[in-house]
């Protein structure tokens, strides 16, 4: 069979979409793991990260890596604030009835949603609902022909984009750093302990509040950097930019089995590729159907997600 260069390009397109979802999913899954509550405001942290980075780049013009570090700090601060406003107040309910109560659990979920609505509306009001102009020199949109990288043969016609390399790099770094933090540091150990059993963790002397704050700071910092890099890659920075990747990251996390960050990353890429392939063979309009059909199939055969283990009831 002849190697179809267009199809390969399509798979590459899908991989890049999947990487975008994965980058968002990493921070999202980390936060979910600790509190077992969906953080609807993650998309807003992502959006604010992009806006903050853009303002930083256009006013001070630091090198991109410096901007990334600054946005990490902004994201950590946002995560800290978000936890304070939308999640901390609900931890005042420590009695058993409240811990088991569905009403209190869904209230936490909705509080992050309410915060996200307020943040988005405020951004629209004060920064405008339309796309921000990203000056060309800051964009990560330069195409790279594989031929120029020394690839020969049928693959040489494929195009990748420098932003995709940045996103891949960021995903790898974040993933590795997170694994290191979770498995090699004390705070990581505490995070895993709280995620496994919040009450038990407190019994052995872990300050659960601090752990939750740390998790939010780390997860949101990652979300904000994801927003900046993806914003520069798509040049699409506007108040609604966090919604679509946020939903897909959520789906990827559940498909992957909630607690598994590698699972979420793999499923995010699966979603991206299935969307691109669906566009190729059917139409973009229907591509979401294929992505969600993949989700249902996975859940049908693996009711606890592809890589979920032991976390059946949350």
């Amino acid at each position: 069979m002849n190697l179809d260069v267009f199809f390969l390009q399509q798979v590459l397109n899908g991989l890049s979409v999947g990487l975008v979802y994965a980058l968002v999913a990493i921070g999202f899954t980390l936060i979910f793991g600790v509190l077992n509550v969906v953080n609807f405001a993650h998309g807003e942290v992502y959006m604010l990260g992009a806006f903050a980075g853009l303002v930083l780049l256009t006013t001070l013009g630091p090198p991109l890596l410096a901007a990334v570090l600054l946005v990490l700090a902004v994201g950590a601060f946002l995560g800290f604030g978000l936890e304070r406003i939308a999640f901390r107040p609900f931890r005042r309910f420590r009695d058993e009835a409240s811990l088991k109560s569905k009403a209190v659990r869904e209230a936490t979920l909705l509080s992050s949603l309410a915060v996200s609505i307020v943040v988005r509306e405020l951004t629209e009001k004060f920064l405008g609902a339309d796309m921000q102009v990203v000056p060309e020199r800051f964009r990560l949109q330069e195409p790279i022909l594989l031929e120029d990288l020394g690839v020969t043969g049928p693959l040489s016609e494929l195009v990748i984009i420098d932003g995709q390399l940045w996103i891949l790099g960021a995903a790898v770094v974040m993933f590795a750093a997170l694994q290191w933090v979770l498995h090699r540091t004390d705070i990581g150990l505490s995070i895993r302990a709280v995620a496994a059993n919040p009450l038990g963790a407190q019994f052995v002397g872990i300050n659960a509040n601090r752990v939750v704050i740390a998790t939010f700071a780390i997860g949101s910092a990652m979300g904000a950097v994801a927003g900046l890099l993806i914003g520069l890659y798509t040049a699409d920075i506007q108040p609604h930019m966090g919604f679509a990747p946020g939903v897909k990251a959520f789906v990827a996390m559940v498909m992957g089995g909630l607690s598994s960050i590698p699972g979420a990353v793999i499923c995010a890429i699966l979603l991206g590729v299935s969307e691109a392939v669906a566009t190729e063979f059917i139409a973009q309009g229907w591509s979401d159907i294929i992505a969600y059909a993949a989700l249902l199939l996975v859940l049908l055969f693996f009711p606890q997600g592809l890589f979920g283990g032991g976390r059946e009831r949350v």
Partner: protein
Amino acid sequence: MLDRRSLLLASAVLPGAALAQSRPVTLGYMLPLTGEFSQYGIRFRQSATLALEAFNAARRIPVPVQILYEDTRSDAREATSVAQKFSDNAEIVGVLGDFSSSASMAAAQVFARAQLPQLSQTASHPDFVGISRFQFRNITTQAYEGPFVARWAAGNGVKRVAVICIQNDWGQSVAQGFNTAFQAGGGEITSTEFFNPGNREFRSILTKIQRERPDAVYLGMFYEDGAAVLQQRRQLAMRMPFYATSSLYEPRLIELAGAPAAEGLFLATSFMPTNPDPRVQAFVTEHTRRFNMEPNSFSAQAFDAVNIMLEAIARAAPDVTRARLRDELAATRDFPGVTGATTFDPQTREPSKTLARMQVRDGRFTAL
């Protein structure tokens, strides 16, 4: 029967014209001032402000005209409530808006019942003016724009075209208007791709199109989507010419897409800020001075829509009622606006417009 409003209305009209004359003529404008489409609504309000101030300053009629703005987020649920609110208000003789078709269509049902004339600057739904005799719109219909671009492309030697449209009612009419005309002229449509609103990832669609090797690509979408397509076609090194609908005309498009990405784009347009016509120049200068931003094609459409409405009020004065305003709107002939002359077809109430050609050259919109 249960309808108290009609009683109110009757009592407001009966006491005679003398009383009515002392009060300002009131219009309603429903538009998205918040939410994801607020950038459009804010532009509409700016245009309406300019048009209204000019009209009142000119003292064409003895009483002032005022506009009540209501935010609908372009959401059908809010739009029906606002439409009902406007219909209840016996002072309101005409309504402008809404932006999106779902909101305009839902509101139109209410206005049809209340017999309140509605003029939308953007409602592109093919069934919009068919809802009742009270619906008007000031847009370039795709039944006209499609053939215009089709002839233009064919004249440039284009034989095979791929079409990318947004999956909304307007995108559907774009594809239909263009495809029919282009095929009738002997051209071939290699494929028509619709994308869901909100999608900004076009590489998959573009790669799919690349395989078909069309001579040109036709874009039917709004400028933000257009900016994303233009960036991504450059990345994929698609060198065939791109044609687009007038909705892509927005001064910031080149900035949003990036000059190298936007270079060479062909656009149909009904509004061109460089048009030497003094009306256009006055509008552009005044708009830029007041709001510190250049008008785009949406601003121009809203500006003309408001002016058409005001013109009809001036003709209907001194006895401005909903029914008279409707008849005067329907009688609009060769209204000289910034988007060209507008005439409403007396039967279908569809506007006819003149279009011009434009291309992005050296990072600027250039008239051809």
